[in-house]
């Protein structure tokens, strides 16, 4: 891993021949942030022939990518108010099988993609009412969801609390092992020729006449034609962003834990969403229990209340968890945008700056779509219709209700 001030040299390649107004395939790209989003964009661009440098203040894949659960649940995770995000999540979910196959072939590393469905489970009569309301909403959007009786739920997952009263199956939903994904993406990006700089914080974005000309790292300007801001929850902290280009992203704290099941005789085989938690069984026997959602800034403490809430919810749904060893507990920070949808694509009035941040709880799900669409934009200048609604320009001040304290 290159340390600060290492031997790296920077040679400037002028944008090959034609006008620099549109970045070309051979342009120099700097990606800020080596999470699943930054790494996958870097992989795509480097594989297509761009010169790519990735800077991360910490380790590659060490932020929200590491903390996530890796659920791919475009159907059952859709809530009222998030309909606008649906075309993007469904598109990305459809891209996952081919993306995973390509990544595994390219990197030679597994990511354990499983599209064997996700079930939301109701335990009480009140839960059933809430579940049914969500089910009607999701069905109304044309999502592939099916109502399951309590018996059907228990047939699928026999260790669930016998009280399980009903369920909703999202047959197209599934999971990927996000930590394996990070390792594979890092290997793929490096293999494609991207240079990864870990422990290298970008100090500021460098602009000349309204155009990005690079970033400053360790006091030195690293020139670039395009800078991709993919720093997740840290994206707001990049110095040098003009007003209007500061993405409204905040850290949304989540506490999680992993239990150890017997891999040969697991308590749970598919992703299950009981009330107040989710349970993600891995092939190796890890059972991930997540997650709190806390607006606590950068607070990174595990709390008794957070862990209690998760374990209690898990135990109510799957009583057998009380026998399982706790293997790990951790805290992560989702990059939450103001509307929980990602901020993607070009930035008005800041040529050369491209956003790929604010994915909130959907970062893993949206990785293939973000990588393909953002890389395509950088290569062609085109803004795909799927990408267009997610520009930073959508955040504008709204009116107040006549109250200014």
């Amino acid at each position, binding site marked *: 891993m290159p340390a600060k001030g290492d031997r790296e040299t920077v040679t400037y390649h002028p944008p090959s021949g034609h006008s620099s107004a549109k970045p070309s395939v051979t342009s120099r790209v700097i990606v800020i942030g080596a999470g699943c989003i930054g790494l996958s964009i870097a992989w795509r661009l480097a594989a297509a022939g761009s010169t790519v440098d990735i800077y991360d203040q910490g380790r590659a894949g060490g932020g929200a990518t590491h903390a996530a659960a890796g659920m791919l649940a475009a159907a059952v995770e859709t*809530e*009222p*108010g*998030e309909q606008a995000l649906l075309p993007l999540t469904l598109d990305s979910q459809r891209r996952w099988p081919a993306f995973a196959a390509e990544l595994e072939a390219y990197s030679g590393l597994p990511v354990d993609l499983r599209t064997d469905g996700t079930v939301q489970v109701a335990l009480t009569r009140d839960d059933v009412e809430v579940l049914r*309301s969500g089910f009607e*909403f999701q069905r109304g959007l044309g999502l592939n969801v099916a109502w399951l009786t309590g018996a059907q739920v228990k047939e699928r997952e026999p260790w669930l609390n016998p009280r399980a009263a009903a369920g909703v199956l999202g047959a197209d939903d599934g999971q990927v092992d996000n930590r394996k994904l990070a390792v594979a993406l890092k290997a793929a990006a490096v293999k494609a020729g991207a240079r990864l700089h870990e422990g290298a914080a970008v100090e500021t974005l460098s602009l000349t006449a309204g155009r990005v000309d690079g970033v400053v790292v360790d006091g030195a300007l690293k020139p670039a034609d395009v800078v991709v801001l993919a720093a997740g929850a840290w994206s*707001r902290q990049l110095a040098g962003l003009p007003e209007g280009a500061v993405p*409204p*992203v*905040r*850290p949304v704290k989540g506490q999680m834990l992993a239990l150890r099941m017997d891999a040969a005789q697991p308590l749970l085989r598919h992703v299950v969403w009981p009330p107040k938690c989710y349970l993600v069984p891995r092939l190796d026997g890890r059972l991930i229990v997540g997650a709190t959602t*806390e*607006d*606590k*800034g*950068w*607070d990174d403490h595990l709390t008794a209340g957070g862990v209690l809430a998760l374990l209690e919810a898990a135990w109510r749904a799957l009583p057998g968890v009380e026998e399982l060893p706790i293997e790990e507990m951790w805290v992560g920070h989702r990059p*939450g*945008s*103001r*509307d*929980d*949808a990602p901020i993607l694509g070009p930035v008005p009035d800041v040529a050369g700056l491209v956003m790929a941040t604010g994915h*909130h709880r959907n970062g893993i799900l949206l990785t293939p779509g973000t990588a393909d669409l953002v890389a395509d934009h950088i290569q062609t200048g085109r803004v795909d219709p799927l990408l267009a609604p997610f520009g930073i320009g959508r*955040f504008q001040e*709204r*009116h*107040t*209700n*006549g*109250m*200014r*304290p």
Partner: protein
Amino acid sequence: MAEDLFRIAGKAFTSRLFLGTAGYPNQQVFLDSLAASGAQVVTVSIRRVDMEGGAEGILDLVRDRAWLLPNTAGCATVKDAVLTAQLAREALDTNWIKLELIGDRETLYPDVEQLVTAAAQLVDDGFAVLPYCTDDPIVCRRLADVGCAAVMPLGSPIGTGLGILNPYNIEMICSRSTVPVILDAGVGTASDAALAMELGCDAVLLNTAVSKSTDPVRMAAAMGHAVAGGRLARLAGRIPKRTRAEASSPELGLIGG
């Protein structure tokens, strides 16, 4: 028509709807709901937000859009609630506090004994205290007597959406109260909010009915209309209920053969 201002603790509002901030699909939906509702007071759980006031946190977004009413949600003891209120006052520069002292996690019912004690302490400490309480006229009177700026009786348990389960109590509380009465908790849909105002409440605080609606922004607008409509109906005065029909057109003096 003269402007019908809602006055409480030295402030005046044109809207009589208070909106909670929890459980929305995302912050933008909340901000749009706030705008659609016309609400001017927003309540925020001090235990559950980033008090650093980090950019893009809920406090940061709400501060210039509405009057902040911090609450002590999640507090279970007098000590806890008093400390939380003091923390809120320091961080938010307001002496208003919505006092919540929850008896247990299953019912989320207020613990009345502790509530009165904590309210008295906070009033002595210079707070404008708005206590969330049971729909009990005696409890409401005690709270007013210790100096609370308003009382906030529940319509039904938090998050149930069951509406006003004991309208007679709410009406009795309103008719006897020496301080403003704000219905808090239990509102499920617009008619519940309108009923609260018709019964004589001065304002309504609600959260889940909007945040968990399929279309929160539209429900927020509905609540704004319902509270305003219920208030107008209350001021206008409802007709007495009768058991027999009475034609709305006069039957005497008709021209006939």
